[in-house]
């Protein structure tokens, strides 16, 4: 944003980005304009990062007017997701299956882990528009763990632990944690702490979801 401002000849631009809000102040000799955008839905969309980056590069080369650039950015914001829902669903399933095998599962766990991925993806994407993120993830992990226990009892999976890994892989905030530390190293202290807190909360949600099922199943065995 700062580079865009400089490319368009604005004398002073200040941008401050956090995971919950973006602040931008543009000042010229006779006026100061500040804009604040609050963010309530977060996600990672690297495709958009690439597209916006391309626009910013063209602006720097002087190839775009302000209006043209604004139109392009609007178009990026309004664009539908690059991959349809079923591609994401399939990707979730294969990533669950692959990682669950790599992290200690046996060949027999491939299909059950894939199904676990489908279930978790459906639950989380279905609930996340209606419930707070924390609860959506809690229920995703809960239903996923339920499936893991069920699959092993039905004899389609070899081990609950391996399947549970498959269930949680798509949910765990490993990258969020890494980005948090990266922000902290870069000096974005607010963004780093916010991301870290969010990652921690998501991890608590997943652990509680899985624990609810495993504790209940242990209790059921004693009955």
């Amino acid at each position, binding site marked *: 944003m700062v580079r865009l401002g400089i490319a368009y000849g604005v004398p002073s631009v200040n941008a401050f980005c956090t995971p919950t809000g973006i602040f931008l102040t543009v000042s010229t000799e006779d006026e100061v304009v500040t804009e604040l955008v609050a963010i309530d839905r977060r996600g990672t969309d690297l495709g958009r990062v690439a597209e916006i980056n391309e626009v910013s590069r063209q602006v720097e080369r002087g190839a775009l007017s302000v209006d043209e650039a604004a139109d392009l950015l609007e178009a990026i914001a309004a664009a539908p997701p690059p991959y349809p829902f079923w591609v994401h669903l399939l990707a979730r399933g294969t990533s669950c299956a692959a990682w669950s095998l*790599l992290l200690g599962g046996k060949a027999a766990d491939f299909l059950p882990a894939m199904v676990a991925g489908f279930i978790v993806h459906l639950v989380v994407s279905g609930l996340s528009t209606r419930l707070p993120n924390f609860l959506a993830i809690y229920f995703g992990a809960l239903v996923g763990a339920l499936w893991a226990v069920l699959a092993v009892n039905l004899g389609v999976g070899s081990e609950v632990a391996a399947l549970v890994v498959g269930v949680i892989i798509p949910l765990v905030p490993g990258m969020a944690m890494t980005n948090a530390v990266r922000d902290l190293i870069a000096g974005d202290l607010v963004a780093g702490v916010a991301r870290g807190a969010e990652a921690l909360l998501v991890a608590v949600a997943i652990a509680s979801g899985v624990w609810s099922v495993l504790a209940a199943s242990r209790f059921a065995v004693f009955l």
Partner: protein
Amino acid sequence: MTGWSELLLCLLGAASTSLLFNVPRRTIIPCALLGTLAFFASLELSARGVSMLGANFLAALTVALFSEVFARLMRIPVTCLAVPGVIPLAPGVTLYRAMYAFVADRSDEGYTLAVTTVLIAAAISAGLVLAGSIFRLFDRNRWIRERVIAAGGTIPPDSD
């Protein structure tokens, strides 16, 4: 499991994870390769007696260096390659196990795992930051700049 099936699984896992991040279509295969590189680099380094943090740092550094090169050749932001590339290293499962230990009343284990998580995340980000800084030094060099552009690549503006 043989090495080949692990390789295949890793490619599959890394490719599908990068899809979930909505990476542009043409970067899916590079992302899968980088993710696989990260996974096997950290395994191999650990097997050769490098400490866990060292292995994560070196694997992330390797992947990030490759990402910087690919990003210049493919004209895309480094983030689109480096983030999916280090995903297999990211300590998500460790963080989950830490929180699980707390929930299940084993807080001693929880503290150890939580600290481990933060340290691994720090090691990975240190690798990413270092690779970025190294390349930014080279970007200022005119000789390199001219050759990258002549080869059809781009110099990313100070990306982060």
